[in-house]
C-alpha cells in the first residue's frame, strides 16, 4: 500500500485557511485606503479660492517655513463638522492649516465656516477631486502633514478626535 499522506492535504489546506480567517477576525478591519505618497514630494497644483473670504491654495503655499497641515474636507461632509473644533484647537496652538474643499459651492463653504469656525489660512476649491487623487486621499476628511521641503510626512484618515491632536502635533514636530 502506497503512502496515503496526500489524503491529509485537504485538511491541511483547511487548517491553514481556518487559522488565517481566525486571525483576521481578531484584527480590526480597516476600511481605509492609505496613501502611498507618504515620504513623497507633494505634487504640483494651484487651486482657485473656494470662496471669497480666503485665498486659494497652491503647492508653493505649503512649502517653506514651518510644517503645515493640509486638510481635505467639504461642507457637505458630516464628520467634517465633528472635527471643526479640533482644527480650531490646532490653529490656536499656532499650526497653519491649508484647506482643500472637495466638490463644494462657495456659498456652502462660507456658511460652513460661519457656523463651525474658520481654522484655515487658505482654501482651494477642488471641484473634480484632482488634488485629492494626486495625493492619494480616498475620502473626506483627511489631514496630511507637509514639511518645509514640501514632502508629505503623515496622513490622518477620518475626522480628527481630541485624542488625535497630540499625535498630529508630534508629527508636525517630527517634520520640523
Amino acid at each position, binding site marked *: 500500500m502506497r503512502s496515503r499522506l496526500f489524503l491529509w492535504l485537504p485538511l491541511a489546506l483547511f487548517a491553514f485557511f481556518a487559522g488565517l480567517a481566525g486571525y483576521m477576525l481578531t484584527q480590526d478591519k480597516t476600511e481605509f485606503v*492609505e496613501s*502611498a505618497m507618504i515620504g513623497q514630494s507633494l505634487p504640483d497644483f494651484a487651486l482657485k479660492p473656494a470662496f471669497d473670504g480666503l485665498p486659494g491654495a497652491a503647492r508653493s503655499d505649503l512649502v517653506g517655513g514651518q510644517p503645515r497641515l493640509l486638510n481635505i474636507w467639504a461642507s*457637505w461632509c458630516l464628520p467634517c463638522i465633528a472635527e471643526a473644533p479640533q482644527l480650531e484647537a490646532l490653529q490656536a496652538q499656532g499650526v497653519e492649516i491649508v484647506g482643500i474643499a472637495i*466638490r*463644494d459651492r462657495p456659498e456652502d463653504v462660507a456658511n460652513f465656516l460661519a457656523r463651525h469656525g474658520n481654522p484655515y489660512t487658505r482654501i482651494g476649491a477642488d471641484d*473634480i*477631486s484632482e488634488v485629492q487623487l*494626486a495625493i492619494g486621499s*480616498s475620502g473626506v476628511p483627511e489631514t496630511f502633514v507637509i514639511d518645509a521641503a514640501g514632502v508629505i510626512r503623515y496622513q490622518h484618515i477620518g475626522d480628527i478626535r481630541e485624542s488625535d491632536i497630540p499625535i498630529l502635533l508630534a508629527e508636525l514636530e517630527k517634520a520640523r
Partner: protein
Amino acid sequence: MIRVLLTFLAALIALPLSAQDTMPPAPYAYNQLDDPALEAQATALMHTLRCLKCQSQSIADSDAPMAGDMRHQVRSRILAGESPEEIRAWLVARYGDYVSYTPTVSSSTWPLFAIPALLILIVAAVLLRRLGRRRVDAGDAS
C-alpha cells in the same frame, strides 16, 4: 391634479436627503471621449480600477462621486496622450496595488501566479497518473 401636486411635493422633499455634494460631476465623469478608439481604451482601463469609496466595484460600475472624478482623470489623461498603463501606474503610486484589479507580479502577489502554475503541474500529474498507465492497468484488470 391633487396627485400631481403631491408628486411634486414628494419629489421636492426627497431631494436634499443624503449627505452628498450637489456639484455637477466632472466633465468626463459621464461623458465619453469623441474618439471611439480612445474611449475604448479608457473604458477597458476603468473596468480594472477599483472604486475606493465603494464595496468591491470598479469605477466603471459606480455612481459614487469619487468614481466619477476618477473616470474623469482616466479619460482626460487618455485624451492628453497617456497610455492606460501609465495611468494605472500613476494611480498605483498613489493608492498602492489596492486600486488596480489587475495584479502584477510583485513581492506581495507572486503566489497568485505561482499557484496556478503549480496547479497546471498538479493537473498534468493527476491526469497522467489516473489516465496515462492504461496498458498496465488493463493488464491488471483482465
